[in-house]
């Protein structure tokens, strides 16, 4: 698949932030201890008029602003999320209409916890490889829900990123992709329920680590690489500790994962997490650099990608849309009461 890959990318992080310390003090906990323990200082909060659809549209529009493709040439759109605005009625059609890609378009929404976005990347890659579409758009975005007082309240945040996949003007080739999948109930949300449940410490070793490590190991075996061969590595980031830990276990250094590690500043954007990390890398990547990405979605599975940056990245108008770093810095703090209003914790009749 040497010639197929990323043609453009975009991301969006909402502006509001709430500090871990502010949440902690509401529940009688110590913010500093929690921040240290989780590796998260603050998280992004969507404003009341934002949701997965609006975030996906922003990310997709940013991707289009950076390149010169005609949105009518996008043949497929997959939006991966755990917080689609409708249980039935796709986010993908809203995005398709908002970017002018309709009506000759294949669309579906994906769900696979935090790796729904990367699953969409795999589908687009396959459709391009099969010459069934010229370009595909894959988006991972979420406005994730967390029960008040639950540990997840410190990390569940909002954001997303979009990749346009194609054969022409590829700025980063997807050399290979593979996945590692088992039926592992580490974290889930039943239909009709507002908040997810999780298996506590079970979400670690048998879930996040097993799948990420297995997928990453398989991928490096298939493409015959070692960690040192990569300039950047991105792992799913449910908190600031897991990705650092899994990187170490696999033999990657902190320097390799630093650029793609956004969770300490914006929290876990769930389906957006790995892709926002990738967007952050693409914001600064140079021709010839190699990127390793392994996402993780509870339930459970990991998608791995071996990516090489091409010369064409210098032609991509990366300045035409905000970078992840710029969006991380463009922020406004809210208090817990405002946060509760914005995330619909208060129930309105």
């Amino acid at each position: 698949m040497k010639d197929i890959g990323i043609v453009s990318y975009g991301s969006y992080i909402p502006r509001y932030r709430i500090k871990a310390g502010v949440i902690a003090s509401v529940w009688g906990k110590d913010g500093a201890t929690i921040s240290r323990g989780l590796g998260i200082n603050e998280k992004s909060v969507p404003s009341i008029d934002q949701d997965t659809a609006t975030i996906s549209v922003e990310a997709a529009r940013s991707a289009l602003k950076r390149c010169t493709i005609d949105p009518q040439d996008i043949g497929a759109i997959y939006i991966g999320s755990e917080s689609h605005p409708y249980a039935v009625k796709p986010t993908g059609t809203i995005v398709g209409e908002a970017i002018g890609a309709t009506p000759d378009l294949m669309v579906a929404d994906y769900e696979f916890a935090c790796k729904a976005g990367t699953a969409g990347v795999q589908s687009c890659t396959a459709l391009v490889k099969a010459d069934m579409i010229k370009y595909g758009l894959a988006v991972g975005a979420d406005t994730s829900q967390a029960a008040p007082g639950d540990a997840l309240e410190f990390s569940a945040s909002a954001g997303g990123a979009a990749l346009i996949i194609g054969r022409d003007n590829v700025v980063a080739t997807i050399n290979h992709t593979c996945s590692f999948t088992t039926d592992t109930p580490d974290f889930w949300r039943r239909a009709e329920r507002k908040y997810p449940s999780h298996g506590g410490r079970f979400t670690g070793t048998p879930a996040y680590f097993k799948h990420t490590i297995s997928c990453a190991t398989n991928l490096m075996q298939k493409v015959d690489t070692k960690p040192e061969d990569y300039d950047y590595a991105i792992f799913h980031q449910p908190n600031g500790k897991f990705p650092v830990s899994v990187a170490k276990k696999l033999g990657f250094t902190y320097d390799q994962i630093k650029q793609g590690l956004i969770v300490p500043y914006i929290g876990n954007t769930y389906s957006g997490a790995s892709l926002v990390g990738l967007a952050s890398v693409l914001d600064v990547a140079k021709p010839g650099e190699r990127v390793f990405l392994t996402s993780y979605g509870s339930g459970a599975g990991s998608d791995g990608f071996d990516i090489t940056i091409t010369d064409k990245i210098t032609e991509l108008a990366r300045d035409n849309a905000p970078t992840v770093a710029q969006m991380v810095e463009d922020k406004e703090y809210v208090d817990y009461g405002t946060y509760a209003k914005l995330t619909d914790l208060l129930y309105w009749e």
Partner: protein
Amino acid sequence: MAGGVARFWREIPQRYNIIGNKCGSCERIFFPPREACPHCRRKSLGKMEDIKLSGKGEIVTYTIIYAGPKAFEEQVPYPVAIIKLKEGPQITAQIVDCDIDDVKIGMKVENTFRRIQEDGYTGAIYYGYKFKPVKE
């Protein structure tokens, strides 16, 4: 919000992509699109062409709404402005991503995609344009 989905579905091109139209006779641009140009009238019939507006403009006047309608109650206080778009037409929209004290006549703004309202918890969600300050 009274009215069924068709009324809002029909205007998706306008709300999502600010699609207006242009008079084939005098080239004036309108938003929302018109059946005929008020200036050229019958000369413009059948000659109106759809055109996507840039979404960039300047605030002409504004207010901060403190007593909002039910669908917007949670957002109060919020700014609403009349914006003169680059291409000429003026449009009414909320201003977002901005402190209410920073909204000014003459402020340069551009459109962004947001939820406008929904038909209650079980009804359809209507998306559309709001405007945010342009970062200089």
